């Protein structure tokens, strides 16, 4: 504050000594909401004389004589220069810089203005996204960025979200992008036990703390991350106060009400008894005419009248209520800036027993020690609790309640009914506990030192510490906990640190050459320690910690680690403001690579041409911005096992005696996967950028694919990891924004579309995981099984095609050929957003779609299986074949005889969908009204998520990706488009308020 006062006094003295001063005053407001903008820099052009606007947006300046114009600059707003023309009062409205060409983009180890960028980088409009609370920030990116495919695995909370930047480029290694938060590579791998679905460590980031998100998509942008750039890089920076930003406090609160998007109907008691009874008669489980009596007697009923009619869906789902509150503040003076934010989230899933609770606190500080030296620190602490249900393959999980026969009651006298055919998951819901508690700390410290003109040294040390504790109790009343209760505890700790040092050199030569060079080194190490204990035989369910267990049930600890040591550099050159060249280079060494292949080289080159800056473009009004970009580069994927190259014997035991077990064959040549990517893009703007957009074409070829080459079991091993195989991804991304209306009523439309074609070029042998397969010439994970040919009208037998392409059918399942019957990869995906605002009211409507993907119902063989067993059936099974001549695709019901119930294309469906993803209506209360109450800004809003879904997929929700049981990295890459008792997505309505004062 003293410094500012001093500066002002100086200015005053200067002004007094100048006889010809003129004083100009005015108010700066924001064009989108008309609110005053504090902290705007106002400078008399051509001089160093300037000021900043005060808290109410007012400024006063005395430009020296001869000054002709004032320049107003503010981050996030378009810079405006206004001629003085002898005026003494100048009010200015600054417009948003949402798609401005001078927007600052954070890239690896630095930042650049958008017009200088030669790569393909998507920057998200975080401010607009934050208007709606999101359970995890990635989920709110859905439908917003071309080339970035986002899919939630199900409607369960706290589980992994699949993100694919420009397709799937690896079969065995992770395909999730690299996350760099405030310069630090964070831990994103699933930390949960393998017997449940993956958890999502990224959910620990509080969306409200995030200032910017950019996604590096092509090689020129990602190559500076070398062996970890192939899947794209998500660069996130968190908020910091700005220089001379008046301190404001933000408070927000919201409350959401959720239900499943879609619920599928199952048979009622009458239909069930009819179908299963008939099935039993057909298969001689019951005498003719006695089938219904037989199935009823299995349920313990003498007649249908005494049997209840339970809709088990009603017991699996609930109307969920969630709330979220946050408090934050940011601001700064000349030398120090700060941001702090606290948030508390309490979310309920639509599935019973599934909740998520998170507390997060963050403090970010910057301080200018001297003219040369800036120091800063960022600190974030998160505590979260995830209350989980069992995996989708367990009877204990609520979604499997739908398998129960409808004639059983869910509860009797308030207790879950115990004599259902399948274990009643409501028992587990009532008596079991499965809590995952996570403590997460992100902390870093950094320094920026100006060494000489244009040369800056950067140093950053960052830590990401993750502690996760899974605590489970299984009651003696449950299947998994009988006979006397079991308790399990699993701890996972990952300490992950980064130490980066680099130099940045920026220089302009002769006005036409602009050069920027970055070079430095990076160290990273991650150490993980997992421990588990388990106990059983508890005195009673009142004792739930292992201290009370009479017997041991599990003991285990495990440690692993990996490290990277890297050198990197990048040069950007701009000539005459229109010709751009860039190159980057990185050497990565990693403990993960084989001894014979310890260091890898990664590089990229790119060029850009700002056509709109050429002389021949200057005399027209239509095209305001046109840039052609091209890039080529090599990136890697090193997300392989930590000791994948070594031949290993692992410790083991045989009934109390120690043992060693051959666990892995050696491959000292093992290395990263290499992706060569070419990108050609065009950025355009018309009519002063009122219409603008980008189009990109890319071709990615990944070679040296890390594959677990399957070995015959007779070798003693199932597979060996080798760098063999190639695959390609090619695609087109297109986005366009249009400011249809400006003025009081604003209307903005943005559309994005992307397609990606994936093809496996070369692998050693086809790989199969469940129903998905990888084979040459096909996209990853095609659905591979027998092709269902419907039902023989003569006898009700299920028929299958004998051979691919042939019309010949057989009723012998074994004789039918396996073939590719579907592709789970979408052809197109994208989103369309319309934004309207009028005075203080704004309305956002976002549609999102996925088109052209096939889905397989893995549970079809149980739930849509023409009454083959006691599972309740989907309604369509009532169309079963009953007598000669019936034309249907549901075979005759034959109890226990697997008539058409083995895996086949019978349960393949089109998974395309269109969703009204988000509709938000907001209202900013008039300033006049709230300023009386001492408030600066008040926004109230109502928002709907997944409000409407249009799809032909017959089961619950089409946005689903079952993780499968005993998943591995490979299986989760390949298993796609599988529905298996998957929880549908939530449809939510949120009401909220944001107050700034």
């Amino acid at each position, binding site marked *: 504050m003293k410094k500012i006062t001093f500066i002002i006094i100086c200015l005053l003295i200067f002004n007094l000594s100048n006889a010809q001063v003129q004083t100009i005053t005015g108010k700066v407001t924001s064009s989108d909401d008309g609110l005053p903008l504090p902290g705007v820099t106002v400078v008399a052009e051509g001089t160093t004389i300037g000021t900043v606007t005060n808290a109410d947006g007012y400024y006063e300046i005395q430009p020296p004589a001869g000054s002709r114009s004032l320049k107003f600059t503010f981050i996030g707003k378009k810079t405006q220069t206004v001629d003085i023309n002898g005026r003494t009062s100048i009010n200015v409205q600054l417009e948003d810089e949402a798609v401005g060409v001078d927007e600052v983009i954070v890239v690896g180890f630095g930042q650049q203005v958008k017009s200088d960028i030669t790569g393909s980088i998507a920057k998200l409009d975080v401010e607009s996204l934050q208007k709606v609370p999101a359970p995890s920030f990635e989920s709110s990116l859905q439908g917003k960025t071309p080339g970035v495919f986002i899919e939630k695995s199900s409607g369960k909370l706290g589980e992994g979200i699949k993100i694919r930047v420009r397709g799937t480029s690896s079969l065995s290694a992770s395909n999730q992008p690299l996350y760099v938060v405030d310069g630090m590579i964070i831990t994103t791998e699933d930390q949960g036990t393998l017997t449940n679905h993956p958890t999502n460590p990224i959910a620990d980031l509080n969306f409200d703390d995030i200032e910017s998100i950019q996604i590096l998509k092509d090689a020129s942008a990602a190559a500076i991350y070398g062996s970890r750039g192939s899947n794209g890089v998500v660069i996130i920076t968190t908020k910091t106060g700005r220089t001379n930003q008046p301190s404001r406090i933000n408070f927000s609160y919201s409350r959401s009400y959720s239900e499943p998007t879609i619920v599928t109907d199952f048979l009622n008691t009458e239909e069930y008894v009819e179908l299963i009874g008939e099935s039993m008669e057909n298969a001689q489980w019951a005498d003719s005419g006695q089938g219904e009596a037989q199935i009823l007697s299995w349920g313990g009923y003498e007649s249908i009248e005494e049997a209840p009619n339970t809709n088990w869906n009603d017991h699996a789902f609930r109307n969920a209520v969630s709330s979220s509150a946050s408090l934050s503040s940011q601001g700064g003076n000349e030398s120090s800036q700060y941001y702090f934010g606290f948030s508390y989230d309490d979310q309920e899933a639509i599935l019973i027993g599934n909740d998520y609770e998170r507390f997060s606190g963050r403090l970010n500080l910057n301080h200018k020690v001297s003219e040369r030296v800036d120091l800063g620190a960022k600190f974030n602490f998160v505590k979260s609790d995830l209350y989980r249900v069992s995996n989708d393959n367990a009877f204990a999980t609520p979604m499997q309640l739908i398998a129960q026969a409808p004639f059983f009651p869910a509860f009797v006298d308030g207790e879950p009914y115990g004599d259902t055919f399948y274990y009643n998951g409501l028992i587990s819901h009532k008596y079991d506990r499965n809590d995952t508690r996570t403590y997460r700390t992100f902390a870093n410290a950094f320094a920026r030192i100006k060494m000489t003109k244009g040369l800056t040294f950067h140093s950053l040390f960052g830590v990401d510490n993750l502690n996760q504790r899974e605590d489970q109790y299984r009651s003696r009343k449950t299947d*998994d906990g009988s006979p006397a209760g079991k308790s399990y505890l699993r701890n996972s700790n990952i300490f992950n640190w980064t130490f980066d040092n680099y130099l940045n050199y920026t220089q302009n030569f002769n006005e036409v050459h602009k050069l920027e060079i970055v070079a430095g080194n990076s*160290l990273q190490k991650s150490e993980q320690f997992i421990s588990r204990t*388990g106990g059983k035989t508890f005195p009673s369910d009142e004792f739930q910690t292992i201290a009370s267990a009479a017997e041991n049930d599990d003991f285990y600890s495990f440690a692993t680690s990996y490290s990277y040591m890297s050198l990197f550099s990048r040069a950007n050159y701009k000539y005459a403001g229109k010709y751009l060249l860039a190159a980057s280079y990185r050497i990565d060494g990693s403990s993960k690579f084989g001894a014979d292949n310890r260091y890898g080289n990664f590089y990229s080159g790119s060029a850009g041409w700002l056509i709109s800056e050429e002389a021949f473009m200057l005399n027209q009004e239509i095209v305001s911005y046109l840039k052609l970009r091209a890039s080529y580069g090599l990136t890697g994927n090193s997300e392989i096992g930590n000791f994948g190259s*070594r031949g*290993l014997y692992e410790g083991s035991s045989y009934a109390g005696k120690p043992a*060693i077990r051959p666990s892995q064959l050696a491959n000292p040549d093992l290395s990263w996967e290499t992706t060569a990517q070419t990108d050609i893009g065009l950025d355009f703007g018309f009519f002063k950028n009122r219409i603008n957009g980008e189009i990109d074409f890319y071709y990615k070829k990944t070679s040296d694919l890390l594959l677990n080459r399957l070995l015959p079991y007779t070798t003693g091993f199932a597979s060996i990891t080798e760098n063999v195989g190639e695959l390609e991804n090619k695609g087109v991304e297109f986005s366009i924004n249009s400011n249809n209306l400006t003025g009081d009523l604003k209307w903005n439309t943005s559309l994005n579309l992307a397609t990606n074609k994936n093809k496996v070029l070369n692998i050693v042998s086809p790989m199969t995981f469940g129903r998905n397969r990888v084979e040459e010439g096909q996209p990853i994970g095609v659905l591979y099984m027998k092709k269902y040919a419907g039902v023989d009208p003569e006898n009700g037998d299920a028929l299958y095609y004998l051979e691919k392409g042939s019309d010949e059918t057989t009723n012998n399942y074994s004789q039918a050929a396996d073939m590719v019957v579907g592709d789970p990869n979408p052809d197109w995906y994208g989103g369309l957003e319309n934004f309207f605002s009028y005075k203080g009211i704004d309305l956002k409507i976002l549609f999102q779609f996925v088109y052209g993907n096939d889905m397989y119902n893995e549970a079809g063989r149980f739930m849509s299986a023409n009454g083959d067993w006691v599972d309740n059936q989907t309604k369509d099974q009532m169309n079963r074949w009953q007598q000669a001549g019936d034309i249907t695709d549901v075979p005759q019901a034959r109890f226990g005889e697997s008539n058409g119930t083995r895996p086949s294309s019978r349960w393949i469906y089109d998974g395309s969908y269109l969703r009204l993803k988000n509709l938000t209506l907001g209202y900013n209360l008039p300033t006049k009204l709230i300023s009386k109450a001492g408030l600066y800004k008040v926004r109230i809003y109502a928002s709907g998520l997944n409000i409407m879904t249009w799809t032909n997929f017959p089961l619950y929700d089409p946005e689903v990706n079952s993780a499968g049981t005993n998943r591995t990295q490979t299986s989760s890459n390949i298993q796609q488009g599988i529905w298996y008792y998957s929880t549908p997505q939530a449809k939510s309505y949120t009401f909220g308020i944001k107050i700034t004062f």
Partner: protein
Amino acid sequence: MKRIKILLYLSVFVLFSCQDFLELEPKQSIDTETALTSGENIRLALNRAYVDIRDGYGQQLFHGAELMADQGEINFQGTYIQPREYLSKNLVASSMWPESAWQDMYQGIYICNQVLKNIDVVEQTEKDQIKGEALFLRGLCYFDLARFYAPTYKPGASNNADAVPLVLDNTEEQYPYRATVQEVYNQAQSDLEEAANLLSEGEYFFANKFAAKAILSRLYLTTGEWEKAANAANDVIESELFSLSATPLAAFNHAANTAEDIFTFQQNNDDNLGNESGTGNEGMSAFYASTNVTGRSDFAITEVLFALYEDGDLRGELQTDLTDDSDEGDIKSLYYNGFGNNHGGANFCAKWLNFDKNLTFIRLAEMYLTRAEANLENDSEIGAAPVEDITAIRLRADVDTPETVDLEFVRNERIRELIFEGNRLHDYKRWGWSVEDLAYDSPQLVFPVPQRERDVNTNLSQNENY
């Protein structure tokens, strides 16, 4: 400026001072090169072979031999498809249990081969026992691989149908062909015979001499070498190291071998097949035992089973007084009424009550039955007359003893005694007995060569019917 220089130097220093930065070592593994260079490690590796082979038997193979021979004794009231496939004798090439058994057995064989290859680093005092165990396990695996994955052995015939690949050295051919039934039996026989010579008598935790002889007696029964079969069984009985338990039930569910056990696969609370990740969805007790013991109440025992026994036969006795408050200790008969959730009012078998108890593999009672059967076939009285052996078995079951016995009686006695212990299908096949409407040599009673294995190794032929 000085401070900045110091910082720069420091960062360069850090980078170059940590050349070991990339040299990280795994914490729960050792390198293959050093793993088998000491006698201690050879022993440790061999211990693991028991685990792999146990896990192959303890569910996939034992269930295969019992459920594929089932004629209504079991009413499956569970949910898994794998046992249903066995029960309906309706396997397909991609059936999971035959595949995982194949994998487990060959993993075990791999270890045995590695142990035999490096046997010279073992000290002389240990060498015979360790070599004998490796041969025993390998011979056992090949014997059962041939019994499950190949057409039935027919004594006197050429037996040249494809059986399984015979891998004796894993550094050789990675993509082997299937050897013939005769070749695999020959290998199994020579491994087991050599094992019987090398193994000690006094070992109970691991395989001993009589384990090898007992398995050999099974093999000789299959190949129709009656005298050898009778002698092998006789050697075990005459060793007097083993004795029958007081009651039929007492032979089962023990944490340590009982006097009746000739060989078991060891299990305890911490290492067993059945309690992986605490779900208890695998192994024997998971299927056979009622809920509230350690099972899923899947294999309900029907009247068909009880009809095999005369009144009062302890081996067919059903206990009916258990309630939902009962526990494992209250079970006093070989069959009992279910308790806990979802038992569906059914009765269950008490041979497999708990996953943490040893996996009964071959016991003395079988030796009496084998000696009796082989002597009848051979028309001899090696060790004892057949009727004496049958009498010994029936006395313990507290049931009338016959004056004379014929082959039919001995065979039925064998089923009554050994049912649900993982051998029935092979006995039926030896005797030419059909299973329901399937002839003993029906291809439906033979496992498929796993589809996965044939996808990877195209040199493998497939069995008829798949």
